[in-house]
C-alpha cells in the first residue's frame, strides 16, 4: 500500500523524459547553458512540472544572463517546494542582479510565522504525510479495539489520537498552502523598463517605473492589463505583456 502512495510521486513518466532531463543536466555541467535551456524548456513545454526541472532551468537562465527568466522558474520551483533552501538562496542571488530595490513592508510577525509554517513543506509531502498518519492512526485504533492487554490498549489509544490529530493538521496545512497559492498570484516583470500606470489605460498617469526581474503580486486582471502590487505596498496597472505569471 505504501508503494501505491509513493509510486506516483517518484514516477518518472517514461524513459525519454528521464533522458531529456539527464541530457539537460549534462549540458549544464559542460556549461552549454543555451542548449541546456532548450532541453529543460522542452520538458516544461511538454507539461512536466517538477521542482528539479524548474530549478535547473532557472539555473541555466541565470548562467546565461537572463535574470527575469531565471527568477520566473526559481519562483515556480519555490511554489512547488516552498521549503527548499537551494531555491531560496538562488532567488536571493538572482534578486541581487535586478534593478529595482524594494523595501518590503514588514509583515506582522504572526503572519510571517504562519506563512513560514504553512510553506515549510511541499504540498506533495504534506499530502503523503497526512495519508500515512491517518492510516497509521486508524490501524492503531483497530489494535486498540481488539487487543486484550490493558497496557497496549492504553498506549494504542493515546498514540492513535495523536496520529489522527497530526494527520488532520497536515490536511489542514496542505489546504491552507493550496489556498495560499491559489489566492497568491505572482508575476515577474519581463520588460527592461516599464511604466506603471494609475489606470488600465495608456493615457493615464505614470506612477512609477519597474525594471525586469521584479516580482509583483497580481491582484486583478482587466483586458490586457494587470493590477499589481509591489512588496513595498505600491499598486498600479501594468500591461499584461510586460509580466509573466509564476
Amino acid at each position, binding site marked *: 500500500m505504501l508503494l*501505491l*502512495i509513493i509510486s*506516483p*510521486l*517518484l514516477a*518518472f*513518466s517514461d524513459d525519454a*523524459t*528521464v533522458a531529456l*532531463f539527464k541530457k539537460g*543536466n549534462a549540458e549544464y555541467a559542460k556549461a552549454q547553458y543555451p542548449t541546456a535551456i532548450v532541453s529543460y524548456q522542452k520538458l516544461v513545454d511538454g*507539461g*512536466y*512540472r*517538477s*521542482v*528539479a*526541472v524548474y*530549478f*535547473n532551468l532557472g*539555473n*541555466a537562465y*541565470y*548562467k546565461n*544572463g537572463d535574470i527575469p527568466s531565471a527568477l520566473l522558474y526559481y519562483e515556480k520551483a519555490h511554489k512547488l517546494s516552498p521549503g527548499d533552501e*537551494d531555491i531560496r*538562496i538562488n532567488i*536571493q*542571488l*538572482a*534578486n*541581487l*542582479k*535586478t*534593478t529595482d*530595490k524594494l523595501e518590503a513592508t514588514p509583515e506582522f510577525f504572526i503572519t510571517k510565522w504562519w506563512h513560514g509554517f504553512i510553506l515549510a513543506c511541499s*504540498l*506533495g509531502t504534506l*499530502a*503523503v504525510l*497526512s*495519508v500515512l498518519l*491517518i*492510516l*497509521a492512526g*486508524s*490501524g492503531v*485504533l*483497530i489494535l486498540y*479495539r*481488539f487487543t486484550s492487554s490493558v497496557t497496549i490498549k492504553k498506549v494504542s489509544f493515546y498514540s492513535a489520537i495523536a496520529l489522527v490529530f497530526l494527520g488532520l493538521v497536515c490536511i489542514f496545512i*496542505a489546504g491552507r498552502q*493550496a489556498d495560499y497559492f491559489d489566492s497568491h498570484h505572482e508575476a515577474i516583470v519581463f520588460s*527592461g*523598463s*516599464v*511604466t506603471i500606470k494609475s489606470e488600465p489605460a495608456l493615457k493615464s498617469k*505614470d506612477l*512609477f517605473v519597474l*525594471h525586469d526581474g521584479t516580482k509583483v503580486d497580481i491582484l486583478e486582471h482587466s483586458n490586457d492589463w494587470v493590477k499589481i502590487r509591489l512588496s513595498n505596498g505600491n499598486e498600479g496597472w501594468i500591461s499584461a505583456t510586460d509580466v509573466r505569471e509564476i
Partner: protein
Amino acid sequence: MKRKYCILLLFLLSTSLLFAADIHFTASASKTEVSTTEQFEVTFTINNSGDRFTPPSFTGFLVVSGPNVSTSMEVINGNASSSMAYSYVLVAVKEGTYTIGPATIFSGGRQLNTKPLKIKVVKGSASQQNNAAAAAAAAQSQNGPDSRVTMKRPGTDINKSLFIRADVDKSNVYLGEQITLTYKLYTRVAIVGSEPDKLPDLNGFFSQDIKNPNQSPNWHVETYKGVKFNVADMKKNILFPEHTGNINIDPISMLFVIREAAKASDDDMFGQFFGTYNDVKYKIKSAPTIIHVKPLPPGKPDGFGGAVGKFSISTSLDKKEIKANEPINYTIKISGTGNLKLLKPLSPVFPADFEKYDPKTEDTIAEKESGETGSRLYSYLLIPRHEGNFTIDPVKFSYFNPATGKYVSLPTQGFKIKVNKGTLENNVTAFSGADKQDVKLLNKDIRYIKTNGDITKNGEGFYDSDLYYGLLAFGPLLFLGALIYGKWYERHNSDVVEVKKRKAGKIAAKHLASAQAQLTAKNSKAFYENVFRGLYGYLSDKLNIAAADLNREKIASELKARSLDGGLINELLDTLDLCDMARYAPVSGISEQQMFDKAKNMINDIEDKI
C-alpha cells in the same frame, strides 16, 4: 470817376466770386495700389486758407505720421493765392480694398469735402520694404546733418529747435509683446558736442539694444509738426514689458553744446558774416512716454510659457535605435520673432527611465528694428539605461500672436526610440545592487542544479487527486469496518452453549488431527484414545452434556430427541464402543485408517444434521 469805381467794384466782386467758385479741396494719394507694410502719403490740399480740418478715419491703415501741415502763398502778377496741404503718411496693414473717407474743412464760410479715395492693398514682401528702408538709412548715414534744412539760429526757445523724442512703434501692447523704442534727436541747430547725462533705466522692461553697425549716427531729414528737422537715431532698444499696467519709459537726458551766435553781434554786420559765436551747453531731456501694457487674454493653452510674437518649432533626434547606456541628443529649435530670450525652457516629457541632463541652450538671435529675430536651440542629452521601446512625446509649444490677438499652438514631432540591450557589465554597474545587499554575497555562486528529482505531468500532483482522497478515507473506513466486525463478533459469542456447539466440530477436528498424527506415527493406542476423546468431546459440546454425565444411553436419547435417524445413532454408538475397546485391546476387522475415516464422516454427518 463814379463809373470808374463801379467798374472797380465789379471787378472786385467778380474776383471775389471768382475766388469763391475756385476753391478746391482735393484728396490725393501717392499710390493707389500699395503693398502691406508699405508707406504711402495721402495729401488733402485746399487752394485757399481753411480751418477746422477734420481728417477722415483711416480705417485699415496705420497713421505713421501726420497731419503734416504745409502752407504756401504765392503772388503772381499781384494775384495772391495760398494753399494748404495736410499730408499723412500711412501704412497698410492688411490686404484688401479700402476707402479713405472724405475729409472736411471750412473755408470761406463753407464746408468742403474731398472725394473718397480708393486704395487697393496687396500682399507685399516685408523684406523688400526692410531692404529699401535699410538702403535709405545707409544712404542717409553717409551724410551728416542735411544742409538743406535751414539751420535756425539758436534763439529764444531752444526746446523748439533741439529736442529728443522717445519714439515707440506701439504704445498699446500685450504683456511680453516687443516694442521698438527709438530715441530720436531732432535738431535745427548746429551741435558742436554732446555727452550723455543720464541713460534711461527702462525699468519694467526687458531691454535689448539694437546695435548700430556704424559708429556715427544716421542723420536724415524728417518733418515734425510741419517743420523740417535733422533727425538722428541716438539709441534703439527692443523692449519687452515685464508686467501689466502703464509703464513709464524714463526720459533720456543729454548735454549738448550748441554754437550760438553772440548776441552782441546782432547788429554787427561783420559778426554776422564771420560768425561771432558762443558755445552754450544745454541739457536736453526727452518727454516721458507711457506704454499701456495689457494682460494676455484668458484661455492660455497647454505649453504656453509666455512666448509672445510669431514662432515656429521643430524637434529632432540624432539616433532612433541605440544600445542601452549610449547617449542620444534631442534638440528643440524655436525660431521666429518675439521674446525669444525670455522663453522658459520647454519641458519635454522623456521616458521616466532615461537619464536626462539639463538642456544646453544656444541662441542665434539678432536684434533688428523689426524686433528680436532668430532661433533658440535646446539640446538635451539623454542616456537610456535599459532596453525596450520608448516614445518621446511631442512637445507642446504655444505662443501668443499679438497681431491677431490669439494663442497659437504648434505641434511637434514625437519620436519612437528602440533601445537594445547594452553590454551586460555596464548594465549591472548602472544600478548595481552593490548597496542593496552584502557585497560578500556577490562572490557566491548559485547552488548547483538538482540532478535527480521527480518529474510529473502537469496536474498530476498527488494532493487533490482521487487517490489522495481515497487513501485518506481508507483508514477511517477500515476502523469503522473493524468496529462493526467487533460488534458482530461479540454478539455472536455471547451465548456459551451456542459457542460450544459451534466450536464442537472444530475441537473434534483438532482431536482427529492429533489422531491422524498418531496414525502416521503408528501409535495405535494413542490413536484410538484421540479418536475416542474427539468423538466424546464433540458430543459433549454439541449436545450440551457435561463430560461426567456422558454415557451411551444419554447420547442415544439426546440424539434421538434431536431426531437424528436411528442407523446413524447405532453406527455412532458402535464406533464409540470400538474405540473404547481398542484403547485396551487390539481390534480386528477394521483398520485404523477406516476407523479414522468413519469417525470423521460421523462428525460431518452430525454437523450437517444438527
